[in-house]
């Protein structure tokens, strides 16, 4: 056989790109078939691994549902009158109303409402159950007051407006109603941090699960891997079925997590709706948006592939002579 004839018949060197691509696709198809076959044959352990992954991933999913819902609730909650400004006794109603107009023009202020000292007295008398005349005869100690509703409920925004008001000569006192807001925001922040902690833990757990599963798989197929390499397979070839295995575990685990998350949403949906109705907040509902679901699935798949790759590479290095 001539050298040229040999090269052509052996098909390893000097083969067309199309041929190599077709071959590459064939190898992928075989790896997929091999992976599916194996997972089917060991369906119990496959199922268990998938369920464990699904459960682990469903924890951050459920928690993110809670955090998103809480965030939405915070935005939804009637902001009320976040700041109340009391004027000095000497300030006239005209001056107070001019001040309120000035305040209304501030960027952070959404709306203002002016309560004159007479209105305040009337309200107070109603509240006390006394006639306004009786109270008025005692002299009206109440100031004019301006209630501000802000465009933002961030504590920083409230503080900025408060500082600005404190320097105004007409203003006697500024009452902040931000305690509850701060508290609510702390809870939201806590929820968010908790979520990220859970996300980190779940990612790590999934990597470990996949890594260990693949490690065992490579170990079980050690002989096959060695022989395949001895007859000329490169690492990419022997790793390919394991990558598909990781992909399959990731995708299936992600789907299980979604199933759990949507079940939780459905299960909690009724009580939440009843709660929302009782607070007359019809938009308040559990949130688990589609992008989040897709993100979860994608993350699971990436985790599966990355975990499988790292683990298989490591294991191959171990069974190779250097």
């Amino acid at each position, binding site marked *: 056989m001539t050298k040229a004839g040999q090269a052509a018949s052996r*098909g390893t060197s000097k083969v067309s790109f199309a041929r190599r691509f077709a071959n590459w696709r064939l190898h992928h198809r075989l790896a997929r078939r091999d992976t599916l076959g194996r997972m089917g044959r060991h369906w119990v352990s496959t199922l268990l691994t998938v369920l464990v992954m699904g459960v682990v991933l469903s924890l951050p999913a459920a928690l993110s549902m809670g955090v998103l819902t809480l965030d939405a609730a915070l935005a939804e909650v009637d902001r009320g009158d976040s700041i109340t400004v009391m004027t000095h006794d000497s300030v006239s109603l005209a001056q107070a109303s001019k001040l309120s107009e000035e305040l209304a023009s501030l960027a952070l202020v959404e709306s203002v409402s002016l309560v004159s000292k007479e209105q305040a007295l009337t309200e107070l008398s109603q509240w006390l159950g006394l006639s306004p005349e009786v109270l008025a005869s005692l002299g009206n100690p109440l100031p004019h007051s301006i209630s501000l509703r802000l465009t933002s409920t961030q504590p920083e925004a409230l503080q900025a407006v408060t500082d600005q008001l404190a320097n105004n000569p007409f203003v006697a006192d500024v009452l902040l109603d931000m305690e509850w807001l701060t508290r609510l925001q702390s809870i939201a922040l806590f929820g968010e941090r908790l979520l990220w902690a859970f996300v980190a833990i779940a990612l790590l757990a999934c990597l470990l699960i996949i890594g260990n599963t693949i490690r065992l798989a490579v170990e079980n197929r050690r002989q096959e891997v060695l022989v395949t390499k*001895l*007859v*000329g397979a*490169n*690492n990419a*070839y022997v790793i390919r079925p394991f990558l598909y295995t990781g992909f399959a575990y990731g995708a299936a685990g992600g789907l299980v997590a979604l199933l759990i998350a949507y079940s939780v949403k459905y299960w909690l949906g009724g009580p939440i709706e009843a709660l929302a109705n009782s607070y007359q907040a019809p938009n308040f509902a559990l949130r688990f948006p589609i992008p989040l679901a897709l993100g979860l699935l994608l993350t699971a798949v990436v985790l599966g592939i990355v975990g499988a790759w790292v683990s298989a590479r490591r294991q191959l290095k171990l069974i190779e002579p250097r």
Partner: protein
Amino acid sequence: MIEFDRVSKRYDSGRDALRELSLFIEPEELVFLTGHSGAGKSTLLKLIMIMERQTRGRVIVNGNDLQAVKGGGIAKHRQDIGVVFQDHQLLYDRSVYDNVALPLLICGFEHRDIGRRVRAALDKVGLLDKEKSNPEALSGGEQQRVGIARAVASRPKILLADEPTGNLDPALSAEIMALFRAFSRAGVTVLIATHDLALISRMQHRILTLKDGALVTGGGRD
């Protein structure tokens, strides 16, 4: 072409399997490798396959210094070599056909071509009727012949065989040897490790004799 230049191999256990071994094998040459058990025959073949690395010296195969062959290059290098292992090294989770087809698949032969070559190789070792069997269901000699079929199916440039006739009766052994000889005539470098002195002494080919890892006869270019 295979060249060893003062090659030594010491295993991690401290055992010197090869000592200062030099040899040269031409392309198209058929050479026998013999020696007592533990003389280092398998070790020598493993160095050519890069299953082990020499401790000292140089191994050159088809003009490539193997010390420089690494990573993906090892796979490429092995695709050019057909090997019959002393312990068969078949895969028992698939049929005889799939075992023989494995190297062809890896090398990237076309589908139709693979079928043709696998059957031709199985035919040469007399196992055409067993292509659907599992290797586990075959006798030791039959498994060995599956290993031979796998080694020759891709018509490699180099053929290494470690005790290929160890489990075969004399008639079959002679047939297999004739097969190897045909390969060397077709331009393949063939190196066969064997204990079967009676068989090889009749065959008029160069014989390398190893003793405790050192070459006793046959190393030169004649």
